[in-house]
C-alpha cells in the first residue's frame, strides 16, 4: 500500500524558529490584557435558569401546612429510592399529611420525576444547587428542612404547570 506523507515543508523562517517563537510570545502577551472569564464564585453567584432541577423541596401553604398529602407517588416513582414517606392523619379537610418525609440527597439524582408525578404540586425542584456537606446524616433532608414557603417557589410552580400541563388549580 502506498503511503503518502503529508508532512509540511518548513520554510527557512520557520526553520530558524525564532520568528515563530516571537509570534507565539506576542499572542500570549496580548492575551494578558483580554477580559477575564473566571467567575468569582462565592461572591459572584450563579443565577440558575428556572428550568434547572436542583434540590427537591416541599411546598408549604400560606397557613403553614404542607401541601403534600403523602400519597407516595414520588416514593414509588423515584428511580434512586431516595424518598421515604410516612403518612399521618390530620384534622384538616384534606385528612392526610406526611408525618415523616425524607429525601436522601446522597441518593437523589435530581431527575425531577417526583415533581412531574406529584398530583398536588407539592414537591418542586428548586434552584438550590449547593448540595455538599460533611456528614451523611446531614444530607438526608427531613421534613423540617424540606418545607419551603410557597412564595419562594412560585416561579417554578408556574413553570411546571405549563411544562407538564397539570390540571390542578
Amino acid at each position, binding site marked *: 500500500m502506498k503511503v503518502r506523507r503529508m508532512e509540511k515543508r518548513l520554510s527557512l523562517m520557520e526553520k530558524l524558529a525564532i520568528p515563530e*517563537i516571537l509570534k*507565539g*510570545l506576542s*499572542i*500570549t*502577551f496580548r*492575551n*494578558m*490584557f*483580554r*477580559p*477575564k*472569564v*473566571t467567575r*468569582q464564585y462565592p461572591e459572584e453567584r450563579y443565577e440558575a435558569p428556572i428550568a434547572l432541577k436542583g434540590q427537591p423541596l416541599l411546598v408549604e401553604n400560606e397557613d403553614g401546612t404542607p401541601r403534600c398529602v403523602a400519597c407516595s407517588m414520588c416514593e414509588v416513582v423515584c428511580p434512586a429510592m431516595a424518598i421515604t414517606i410516612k403518612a399521618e392523619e390530620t384534622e384538616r379537610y384534606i385528612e392526610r399529611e406526611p408525618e415523616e418525609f425524607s429525601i436522601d440527597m446522597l441518593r437523589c439524582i435530581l431527575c425531577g420525576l417526583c415533581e412531574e408525578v406529584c398530583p398536588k404540586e407539592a414537591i418542586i425542584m428548586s434552584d438550590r444547587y449547593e448540595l455538599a456537606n460533611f456528614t451523611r446524616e446531614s444530607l438526608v433532608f427531613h421534613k423540617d428542612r424540606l418545607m419551603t414557603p410557597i412564595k419562594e417557589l412560585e416561579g417554578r410552580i408556574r413553570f411546571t404547570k405549563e411544562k407538564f400541563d397539570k390540571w390542578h388549580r
Partner: protein
Amino acid sequence: MTTAFLIATIIKVLVLFHMVPIMVSLLTLAERKVSAWIQFRYGPNRVGPWGLFQPIADGLKFFFKEELVPEGANPFLFRIAPALAAGPAMMTVAVIPFTFPILIDGQPFSMAIADINIGVLFFIAMSGLGVYGILLGGWGSNNKWSLLGGLRASAQMISYELSMMMSVITVVMLTGTMNLGEIFSFQGEHTWILFFFPVGTIAFVIFLIAAFAETNRLPFDLAECETELVGGFHTEYSSMKFALFFMGEYSAMFTMSCLLATFFLGGPTFFGLIESIDSLWLRALIGFLVFAAKVGLFLFFYIWVRWTLPRFRWDQLMHLGWKILLPISILNLMATGILIATGVLS
C-alpha cells in the same frame, strides 16, 4: 578593615542573602499570576490583597506536609539532594554586584557580597555543582521516573553548560576581566555587550537559551516533564524537601537573570546616565533600581516563555545543544578573537 566596614559588610550579606528566598516566594506568586493572565484567569487572589500572602500559605502548607522517605531509597543521598540543589543556586548570588560601589570610610565598597577577581569562574563552578542535587535526588529516590529525570537533567546541563561557557568567555574576552563589577563598569564606559554586534548579540542569545536549559525551565524541563516522568527527579519528594527543589529552581532563575543583566545589559548602568550622578549613595540607589528592572524583565520573560512554548523532545534538545548552539558559540568565540586581534573591537 574598620568597624564600619565590618558592620556594612554584615548588613550587606544579610540583606542580599535574604533577598533570594523573598524573591523566590514572590516568583512563585508571579508565576501563577502571569500564567493566569495568559489564560484569561485571575490567579490566586484569596490570601491577602491580590493574593500577595499566597506564598506564605504555600510555605506553611509545605511545613505541615508529611515527610516520606521511600522504601529502598538511599536515605543520606535522598536527604542531602534538595540542599545540594538549592545551595549552589543561592551561592552564585554572592558574586553578583547589585549596584555601583559606594564609599565606606573613604574606601570603595562593592555591592557584591564577594567582590572577587574570578567571579565568572565562581559562577561557572557553582552552576556546574547545581546538577548534583538533581542527579542525586533522582538516583537516591529508588524510582525509575526519578532516575530518568536525574539522568536527563545531568545530560542536559552538561550539554548546555558548554555553549553557555563559550558565550561567557566571549564576554570575558570583550571586557578583559573576570570580575563582575568591572564587567558592568566596562559596559558603562563603552556600551552594553548586547550591542557589540554581531558577537555580543549572538553570545547573548546563546546564553539566554542555555540559561533556560540550565535552570530546567520550559521549554527545556525534560527532567521533570509531567507527561512522561510523573514528576521527574522530585517524584518521591514531599514537604520542605520538595520545597527546597522548588526554591533551587527559582533561585537559579533569579541568579541567571541577574547574570544576564550583568553580562549583557550592563548591570546597573543605563547609557551613562546613572554614572553622571555625583552623589554616590543616590547613584547606588538608582543603579539598584535599574538593575532590578533589568532582572525583573528577564524573570518575566522566563515565565512568559514557560506559558507560551511547548516542551522540546529529548532528541530535539540534544540536537539543538550539540549541533547548533555549540558550533555557533565556538565560531562566535573565534570570531571575537579575530575581531579583537584585528582591532575592530576596542
